[in-house]
């Protein structure tokens, strides 16, 4: 029996007015995949992320979550589908006026009928999962860049989403912290069985965690390669190999 992909994109084009950022994108993200969206600066990775997460309507095409068309769904269905996603934004996007515990608790308080003490337990567990046990009462401005990213991941996981979308997990982090975050993502995939979409141009990260990928080209404004990034490095499109070897191949 064919596996229903967690995410399926068909003929997706995104534009700002007349300017087409990417056109005719088509790919599938299967359950348990770590799917990497890669490409150089300005190729439209974050715009694609916004189209996938319901933040920006694409110019044309469809995004299906578990077979349900997101952009043609009724607003209440869109909301339900969005709750299947957990999103970690590039800069963390933690709410600065709330403590870490309040940041993680807010989606739980909004969508799950639990007592405050039970929510507090879940919040502590999520923060412990990302190595931030005991930082419940801290405000985002009191944390380092790596801690903010991990706290943002804890918030993204608050509602136990099927799909985690992570925008530039390693940007602004030192190599060891970036590596630890990669390990955390792999561990979450293996233990939770979550599907993870990662937007990245960090080569080490792409090759370490990616099980499938697409490469968005800024010149032709479309995807020019799909597949496992390690295979793409060996035998893929010349432009992709050029990208994955930092211009040495």
């Amino acid at each position, binding site marked *: 029996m064919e596996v229903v992909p967690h995410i399926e994109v068909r003929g997706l084009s995104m534009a700002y007015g007349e300017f087409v950022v990417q056109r005719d994108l088509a790919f599938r993200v299967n359950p348990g995949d770590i799917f990497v969206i890669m490409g150089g600066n300005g190729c439209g990775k974050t715009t694609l992320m916004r189209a996938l997460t319901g933040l920006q309507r694409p110019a044309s095409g469809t995004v299906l979550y578990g077979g349900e068309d997101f952009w043609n769904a009724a607003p209440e269905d869109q909301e339900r589908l969005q709750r299947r996603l957990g999103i970690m934004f590039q800069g963390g996007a933690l709410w600065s006026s709330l403590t870490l515990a309040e940041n993680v608790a807010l989606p739980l308080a909004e969508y799950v009928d639990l007592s405050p003490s*039970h929510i507090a337990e879940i919040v502590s567990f999520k923060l*412990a999962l990302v190595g*931030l046990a005991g930082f419940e009462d801290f405000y985002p401005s009191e944390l380092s860049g790596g801690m903010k990213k991990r706290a943002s991941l804890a918030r993204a996981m608050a509602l*136990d989403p099927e799909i985690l979308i992570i925008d530039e997990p390693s940007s602004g982090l030192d190599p060891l912290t970036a590596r630890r975050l990669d390990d955390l993502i792999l561990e979450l995939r293996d233990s939770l069985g979550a599907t993870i979409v990662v937007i990245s141009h960090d080569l080490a990260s792409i090759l370490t965690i990616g099980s499938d990928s697409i490469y968005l080209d800024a010149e032709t404004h479309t995807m020019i390669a799909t597949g496992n990034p390690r295979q793409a490095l060996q035998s893929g499109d010349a432009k992709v190999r050029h990208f994955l070897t930092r211009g040495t191949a």
Partner: protein
Amino acid sequence: MTNAFESPAAGKAGQMLDMRYVGGDGLLVVLSGRWCLDRALPSRDAVEQALSEGVEDVRRLKFDAASLGAWDSGLLTFLAGVLKACAARGIEVDQDGLPEGIRRLLAMAFAVPEQKVARRSGRDANLLARVGTATMKMFHGAPAMLRFLGEITLSFLRLLGGRARFRVSDMWLEVEQVGPRALPIVSVISFLVGLILAYLGADQLRLVGAQIFIADLVAIGMVREIGALMTGIIIAGRTGAAFAAQLGTMQVNEEIDAFKTLGISPIDFLVLPRMLALMLMVPLLTLYSGFVGMLAGLLVSVFIFDISLFEYYNETLRALELKHFWVGLSKGTVYGAMVAFAGCLRGMKCGRSAEAVGKAATSAVVTGILLITIAASVMTIVYYQLEI
């Protein structure tokens, strides 16, 4: 002994938690069914109760999850609680009976020990302590304000010496923002205030048959006091808040630190053009406000109270002296400086978060209006004593 625990709310979902004492000192925790947050889940208190009610002390705890269905954070937090309870009692836990994914997640959660020092204390301090802390904070803010005033003074001295580094185009940009773009709102407010003054005067002066003095009241009132005051308050809300938000955002983005590291004074580059722009434009807006107010007074007097246009015009000319304009202009200049000072002070001292920018903007308006009010009182008394 077998204890079965089932939350009543679980309904027909079946038994989820069962416990059996095994081998004298062991407790087997049997998990079954669907353990998800969308339903009521058993409490770990039941396990803790079983741990303390055994015939002999429980020394080992095992899990049986053969019949466990779907699970999420609900089960994980339950198990984390059980593990902590066992650790506190020195009970050995065998996790082999749990699915591998759960074991790995629990291992991750306990991999980094809790940062005990990280927990905050004193968050719920009593009212007296909080009032005391807030008062001390307010007094600690005073030296910062004086230091900032000193820095601005030095910056002005550098400007007079031709050594201040800022782009003149920035100043003109600010001039455009605070001057011409503020005209519509200054026009509306000044017209309405002039209108109110005329009605207020007419009501009282009618009692003594001296309605013609509406012209004196409106002219002197608008040119000397109200024009400057209203313009100052409008600019505090419009421009003071904008200054604080702009500089606060630059503080968040480390742009101000970048100036400092390059040896460029952020006071010269950012504060000085804003101070100059407001000190230049607020007096002009004050004059404009006075004229708009007088126009409103004229319209009310002519069309409502039957005073002729020439009578009103002549009375206005007779009432107004050059000193009134100087008083209005001097007040406008001081208010402009006060608003720029408050806006720039709050922006430059802003924290590094979005919330801090909002607080800086609010504080800039409050500080600006407070400073304007204090300055207005002092200047009115001084001018009165000097018979200006």
